[in-house]
């Protein structure tokens, strides 16, 4: 067992768009320790979502290396890769798009349990109930359609689905950006609790540095396909060195700051 759960070295990726080559990633390296959260922050088009998808092998990089718990991830193929997928999961931005529209809550949670053979078929219903309870949902939701529950509940189901295979790493791609403000905080609380209990490492992708600051131990700021700045969260947020880091910090909407306006605090 190595101390680093994920080591990415010099990843590059470009897409062909209207005949032109557009560089999405330009030699990106990062390291993530077990149980740690790294926040990937950047404006749209900075390559953070491309990087997130490469880390879980949804997109193939053109060059570079990717080691997951010491295993060369890019060398994995077919059944071996599918087995290894148990250990790294992903939560998407739009929970409605991330589920088959015909799925039920129980069906969506049963998929990883069945595919990765986590529990026997007879234990599956009780495991689904356990997963729902872990993310703060009532087991009565199990038979509902994915379209019949609220957005916040849906994102909790997405997190439960990621937890189902008991992973070491979850990549969260703008996982709270589409949620209402009051729900967002609760989901962040849930993620932090789960990390404390299970020691899961997170790659937390967001354009909102304030949200990242609340959950990440370290921050990597991306711009135009490169990581331009990285460091412990407090120091990066307090004194960003890169220009994009400074504008990300400046762009955070602040409540009126005069303390006398906030008598309830």
């Amino acid at each position, binding site marked *: 067992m190595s101390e680093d759960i994920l080591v990415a070295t010099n990843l590059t990726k470009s897409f062909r768009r209207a005949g032109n080559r557009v560089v999405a990633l330009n030699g990106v390296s990062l390291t993530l320790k077990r149980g740690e959260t790294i926040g990937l922050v950047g404006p749209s088009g900075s390559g953070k979502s491309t990087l997130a998808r490469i880390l879980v092998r949804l997109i193939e990089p053109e060059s570079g290396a990717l080691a997951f718990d010491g295993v060369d991830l890019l060398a994995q193929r077919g059944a071996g890769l599918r087995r290894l997928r148990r250990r790294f999961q992903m939560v998407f931005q739009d929970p409605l798009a991330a589920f088959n529209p015909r799925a039920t809550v129980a069906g969506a949670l049963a998929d990883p349990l069945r595919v990765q053979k986590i529990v026997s078929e007879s234990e599956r219903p009780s495991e689904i109930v356990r997963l729902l309870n872990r993310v703060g949902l009532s087991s009565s939701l199990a038979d509902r359609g994915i379209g019949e529950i609220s957005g916040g509940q849906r994102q909790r189901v997405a997190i439960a689905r990621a937890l189902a295979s008991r992973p070491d790493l979850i990549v969260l791609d703008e996982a709270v950006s589409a949620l209402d*403000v*009051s729900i967002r*905080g609760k989901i962040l609380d849930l993620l*932090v609790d789960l990390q404390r209990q299970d020691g899961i490492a997170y790659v937390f992708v967001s354009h909102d540095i*304030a949200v990242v600051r*609340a959950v*990440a131990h370290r921050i990597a700021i991306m711009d135009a396909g490169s990581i331009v700045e990285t460091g412990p*969260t407090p120091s990066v947020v307090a004194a960003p060195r890169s220009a994009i880091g400074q504008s990300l910090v400046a762009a*955070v*909407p602040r409540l009126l700051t005069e303390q006398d306006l906030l008598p309830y605090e």
Partner: protein
Amino acid sequence: MSGVLAEIRGLAVSYDASDAGGTAALVDVDLEIVAGERLAVIGESGSGKSTLALALSGLLPTGAALTGRITWPGLASQPRPGRDIGYVFQNPDASLDPVMSIGKQIAEVVRFNFGMTWRDAETHAINLLGRVRLPDPSAIYRAYPHQLSGGQRQRAAVAAAIAARPKLLIADEATSALDSVVQAELVRLLDELVSTDGMTLLFITHDIALASSFADRIAVFQGGRLVEVGPTRRVIGMPAEAYTIGLLVSHIDLATPPLISRSGQ
């Protein structure tokens, strides 16, 4: 600040009463929109904030039942949509025609409302594209929506919305789909446009901090009801309703205590 632009009395809207639940989107709303003000309408999904905007601009879908009364003391007659009210949607692709050049779409609005020649309309449209700070307006004039970035498309949509010099500009979550840096720029632009043109701005958002950064007044909606309305400093500093306090507490900015330090990591 002059007189009242629009007066809403006892407004109620419900969609498709035959549908399960027959849910009312708005219930018993009394609200005045003061001419020249920047009024922020805050609410989470399902709060009815978008329905309010649609009702004001006469864009409610067929089948929606509206009761109550909207009068326009600030206008000579009933508002003509597109002329007296400009509308910027969350998704610029919903308001821009994908197969017509940006400039032509704007020039058409100008021609239709002011009876200009194509040549005058083109000059006017290029001028407008400059006003929304798009780089190289005459090149953008000839560009098609897909050739622009999301932020640029939204700027073009703003240019089209203000082309007819409306009295009221409605921005319905117009910045929510953008990353935080572009969002901050667009908010600054809207703020500047309404103050130079003397427009009234109805800024609909789920983000109370974003609203507090520039709105004169804030109206908070929840579950179809107007919870409270007042000057920004009062609503932020001395919220009267528990719901508003909840929104303020769940707001995450750079002053929020990080969740991970709480968990002792």
